């Protein structure tokens, strides 16, 4: 190994898929590119703010760009951050969900109109995002657009992602109705069998409008796949072209990620172990991300 790479810092967001991504990236950068990697546990907004204000950490990965508000766009415009490529293929899933057992019992609930017609079947309640999340903004715009409250569904604003997730878990424990927002790939969606509610056609204008906190009259739309990206600072881009090449390539198919997450759940595995699982079972995928030198460095592993 040569040590031309030096020190690199990479964020690890506080949800399961992000920790897989970060650990995979970190392993490859260490073993393949000879870098000295520091993992920084963080969260979307603090990470992006830290990049904005202090120029560190070098790499922000599994960045749900929709959730970062204007900061991210501004940074990109100012040329301080470079988006390298999608982390997930086809992308993150934002959706309104119901449990599978509910969909089985009442197939009508698979569409939003069915839900609106039978609010009592979903327990007359919509589980909304906590204050301060990106999804809260568009949910707050879309909920009136679909007339959720008029249909007699109470909107419950969760205080944190934890209670939102627990409400799903506890609904499953008791086979109770549940209806609300969640996103994938996540441990929760991996663990519990959830069905997306069909919200009709995608309307780009309405979707654009729903991102604005102060918007008033938003039309109905469903969610497009959410862009989930890896971004690096421009300094980093200049200094580590080989890593930039690798990170641009680093894309996880959604189904592989979901499989990894549910394996983690079954085995009570940590993100690190999830990464190992991915690295050992999907060499075909990640071998394609590497340049020659890295491939050689990791040849011993790849040949097993």
């Amino acid at each position, binding site marked *: 190994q040569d040590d031309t790479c030096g020190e690199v810092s990479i964020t690890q967001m506080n949800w399961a898929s992000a920790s897989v991504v970060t650990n995979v990236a970190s392993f490859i950068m260490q073993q393949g590119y000879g870098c000295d990697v520091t993992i920084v546990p963080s969260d979307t907004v603090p990470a992006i703010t830290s990049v904005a204000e202090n120029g560190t950490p070098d790499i922000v990965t599994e960045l749900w760009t929709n959730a970062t508000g204007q900061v991210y766009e501004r940074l990109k415009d100012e040329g301080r951050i470079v988006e390298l490529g999608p982390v997930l293929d086809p992308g993150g899933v934002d959706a309104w969900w119901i449990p599978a057992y509910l969909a089985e019992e009442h197939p009508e609930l698979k569409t939003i109109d069915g839900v609106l017609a039978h609010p009592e079947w979903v327990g007359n*309640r919509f589980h909304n995002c906590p204050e301060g999340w990106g999804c809260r903004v568009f949910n707050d715009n879309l909920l009136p657009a679909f007339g959720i409250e008029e249909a007699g569904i109470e909107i419950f604003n969760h*205080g944190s992602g934890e209670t939102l997730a627990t409400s799903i878990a*506890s609904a499953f424990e008791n086979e109770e109705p549940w209806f609300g927002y969640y996103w994938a790939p996540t441990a929760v969606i991996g663990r519990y069998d959830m069905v997306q509610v069909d919200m009709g056609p995608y309307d780009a204008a309405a979707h654009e409008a729903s991102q604005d906190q102060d918007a008033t009259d938003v039309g109905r739309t469903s969610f497009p796949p959410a862009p989930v990206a890896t971004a690096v600072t421009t300094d980093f881009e200049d200094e580590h072209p080989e890593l930039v090449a690798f990170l641009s390539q680093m894309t996880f198919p959604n189904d592989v990620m979901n499989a990894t997450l549910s394996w983690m759940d079954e085995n009570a*595995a940590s993100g690190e*172990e999830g990464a*190992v699982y991915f690295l050992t079972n999907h060499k075909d995928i990640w071998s394609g991300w590497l340049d020659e030198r890295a491939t050689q460095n990791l040849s011993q592993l790849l040949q097993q």
Partner: protein
Amino acid sequence: MPTYDWLFDSTGLRDWCDGEGGSSAPMSMADLMSQAGNAPDTSVWQTPFPSMDALNDACASFPQARDLTRGLERGFLDIKDSLSVVLDPLTQPLSWALEAALWLFQTTPWFVMIPVLALIVAVISRSARLTGLILAAFGGLAFINYYDYAMQTLAIITVCALIAVLFGVPVGIAMSRSDRLERIMIPVLDMLQTLPPFVYLIPLIFLFSVTEPKLYGIAVILYAIVPVVRLTNLGIRMVDPEVIEAADAFGMTRRQKLYGVQIPLALPNIMAGVNQTIMMSLAMVVIASMVSAPGLGVLVLRGIRNLELGVGLVAGFGIVLLAVVLDRSTKAALARVNAVQKG
């Protein structure tokens, strides 16, 4: 790698190890690295602790640490239903109380609410300055449109602190009268104070529907009840033994002594406990907002999640302002209690 093979080999447990279908731990990053040809050097200094995972490495039948945490989880989930059958109805009044208080504090118009609050403070403190402070504080919060949030927080604190006092004082009294109970309770109180609230929030979330206000109510009460229990106990135990002796010497019954002597004389301490209990419930509002409590805590969370510095700071100072107001008011009440007794 499995350092502790010899342990099972030498004790003849090897058969047991290989026999049953014990699960082996998923491969760790270190294992993978060694496969990649970059094994970290394994000197004596790296000898792992004979931990559950290390032993499981050597013997697949030995349980892993994660089996322990999973077992705990499963155990809890197993008793959860019966627990919730008992606890759910017991704690339901808390939900009602919180809902009622939230409704009351929010529907009462500001031009009734603010004067009423000021009046209450005026009556208990008899201080014009303090009353002015109240008016200014709530007026200020209202002026910057934080009135509703402040009222929600106030409603939650009022209910939780009230309930904490309602339960805490009798518990403190019971502790003061039984050394055995005191010995049992003190570690419990210590634990309630050191255990991060997040930890007992997790099982609570499983027990009750996350949409119930009692979820945060219980968390706040558990955290805030400690000082009033402690100080009630302490206050009663610290009552001048000569006065207690006098009460005995004049043939007071235990009841007469408790209500006629011990509680009145412990009142300054109990009030200090009430003051601290209120402060601690306030300290919990942000964490309570993580389990869906409305109020200023929500704004703080929004501030930190979106890094809206201004919102976070202003809401934070709103909380401090509430704290100052509540602290001053209870201390004024305390001072009046003290003035009567001199102490």
